[in-house]
């Protein structure tokens, strides 16, 4: 599956088609379990309660066969996972439907043949075939169904096979009634073909649409990538000049080039501060753009506990300056995690800086690692200004800053949480925020172990 990702647009759409087909085959397998069980139960009920004179043994055998080949297909599909090709999966789909038709024919033969109105259950198979298979294959399957039907009816008509009557349910002993046979056959056969025609037309149109949408989506992804590369180049250019400006301002504001008078010092300080803010914005923009463009991250095993402590240590000066106490707790059973260490480390540090920034002096921040089975939950809870409820849904948007955050702190890029979200999602994790305005914010990150 992963190999299919790296090829071009064509392969991507066919990969998605293949994925869709596999999904539907699993759905068909689930349906077949229900069918096998239903047949089994129906035979049991009709045989014992209503005392129908049906060949119970043969019907049980047929439903068991249904279950057995269903299991076989299930195992087969699981075993080719990862190396499936469209041709193979398509062949599996075709043989499943042919076998289904055969089983249905056998079941019908043992429960009344031409008299059995369940005959029309063949239509379901036609619809399933039209969804799963190509138009041509669907019509071939319909023809196979007609063939099975004709063989059954003829063999019963010429008494080569015994005829089992469905007494107490419907008229019986019609296996030699030519008028009945030709009438039912006409309606049955035409119904099958019409059903296939209608269902394949609809599903064909849907498949076409799906393909167009898939291609459009790929095109959008490609355009987004080009846009990101453009942003990266522009931001890099800005940063280069900004570096030089900062470099030149520094010695002046630091007094290396001689003492400044109060007014000069003040103005240079303002310039220094503004360039520093612009630089932090440019850096955040570079960071998120890089993450968007990076296809894979360097994964390694490391201790999340250590990363948390490191983040707390890195931000301790800021916390101390505001008399904020930062506590760390950890549940037992949390071993090393496989992730992109540097990204996680920076994300934790940035989030902690964020919490400190929006927590009033003498507040409290609790950092916790929780063991939640297959995932580790990282919690950062502060007693800060919180986020207004109606703004919570937008808080992870790029450049979005909550209204109260803008009042509390004029500066901020509005990129920090989007960066965190990107990093967490690249690890197939989840990030969400619980917050009450004025009380505090709890940030949750779930990472797979």
């Amino acid at each position: 599956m992963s190999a299919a990702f790296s090829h071009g647009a064509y392969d991507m759409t066919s990969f998605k088609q293949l994925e869709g087909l596999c999904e539907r085959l699993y759905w068909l397998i689930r349906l077949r379990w229900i069918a096998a069980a239903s047949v089994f139960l129906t035979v049991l009920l009709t045989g014992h309660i209503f005392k129908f004179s049906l060949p119970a043994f043969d019907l049980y055998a047929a439903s068991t066969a249904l279950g057995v080949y269903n299991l076989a297909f299930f195992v087969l599909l699981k075993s080719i996972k990862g190396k499936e090709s469209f041709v193979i999966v398509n062949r599996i789909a075709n043989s499943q439907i042919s076998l289904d038709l055969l089983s249905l024919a056998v079941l019908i033969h043992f429960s009344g043949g031409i008299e059995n109105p369940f005959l029309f259950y063949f239509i379901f198979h036609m619809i399933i075939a039209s969804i799963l298979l190509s138009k041509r294959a669907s019509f071939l399957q319909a023809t196979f169904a007609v063939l099975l039907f004709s063989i059954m009816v003829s063999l019963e008509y010429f008494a080569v096979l015994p005829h089992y009557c469905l007494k107490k349910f419907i008229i019986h002993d019609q296996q030699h009634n030519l008028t009945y046979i030709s009438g039912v056959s006409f309606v049955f056969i035409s119904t099958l073909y019409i059903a296939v025609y209608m269902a394949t037309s609809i599903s064909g149109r849907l498949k076409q649409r799906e393909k167009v949408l898939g291609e459009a989506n790929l095109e959008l992804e490609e355009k987004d990538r080009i846009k990101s590369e453009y942003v990266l180049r522009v931001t890099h250019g800005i940063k280069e000049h900004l570096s030089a400006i900062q470099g030149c301002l520094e010695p002046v504001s630091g007094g290396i080039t001689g003492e400044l008078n109060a007014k000069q010092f003040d103005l240079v300080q303002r310039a220094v501060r503004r360039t520093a803010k612009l630089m932090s914005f440019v850096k955040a923009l570079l960071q998120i753009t890089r993450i968007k463009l990076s296809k894979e991250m360097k994964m390694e095993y490391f201790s999340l506990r250590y990363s948390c402590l490191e983040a707390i240590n890195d931000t301790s000066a800021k916390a101390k300056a505001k008399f904020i106490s930062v506590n760390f707790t950890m549940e037992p059973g949390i071993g090393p995690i496989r992730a992109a260490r540097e990204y996680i480390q920076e994300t934790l540090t940035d989030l902690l800086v964020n919490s400190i920034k929006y927590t009033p002096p003498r507040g409290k921040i609790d950092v916790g690692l929780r063991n939640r089975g297959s995932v580790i939950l990282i919690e950062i809870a502060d007693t800060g200004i919180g986020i207004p409820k109606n703004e919570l849904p937008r808080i992870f948007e790029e450049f979005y800053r909550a209204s109260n955050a803008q009042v509390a702190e004029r500066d901020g890029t509005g990129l920090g949480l989007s960066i965190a979200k990107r990093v967490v999602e690249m690890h197939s994790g989840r990030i969400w925020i619980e917050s009450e305005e004025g009380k505090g914010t709890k940030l949750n990150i779930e990472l797979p172990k």
Partner: protein
Amino acid sequence: MFCSATLGTFLEWSNERYPEKDERRSRLVSANAKILIVDDDPDIVESMKVILESKNYQVSVAKTGEEGLRKVRGEAPDLVILDVMLETGDKGFDVAREIKWDPQYKHLPILMLTAIKEKTGLDFMKEAGDEQWLPVDDYCDKPLHPGELVSKVEALLNKR
């Protein structure tokens, strides 16, 4: 609602720049040491020059990798400050290797300047001193801060 660590760190730096008490010691250790700056950005070069000259270092400048190598051989500097991006994006790496693979300059300390470290996962420290990959003694992330530049230069000169 987010601010990267840069602003805070920067403000901390501005408070503890150029500690006066180290002045005499550094002058003793590295008085008149010759420093070669290899960087193609004239403004960055000028700002570094001002800072380093204020600490009584002799500074000479090269704009390209080739010129840098020539001046290493011709002027025998005590330390080289080398930018990664010169004529090409990673020309600085080649220059560093060429200097360190020459037995005569094996012990010449190199301080590498880079702007490419931002969260790319590229950890320069790991490679610093690894002669096969990137034979430099330390690196400085751009944008430069005077305090950091001076303390790294002093540390490298003292280590000699």
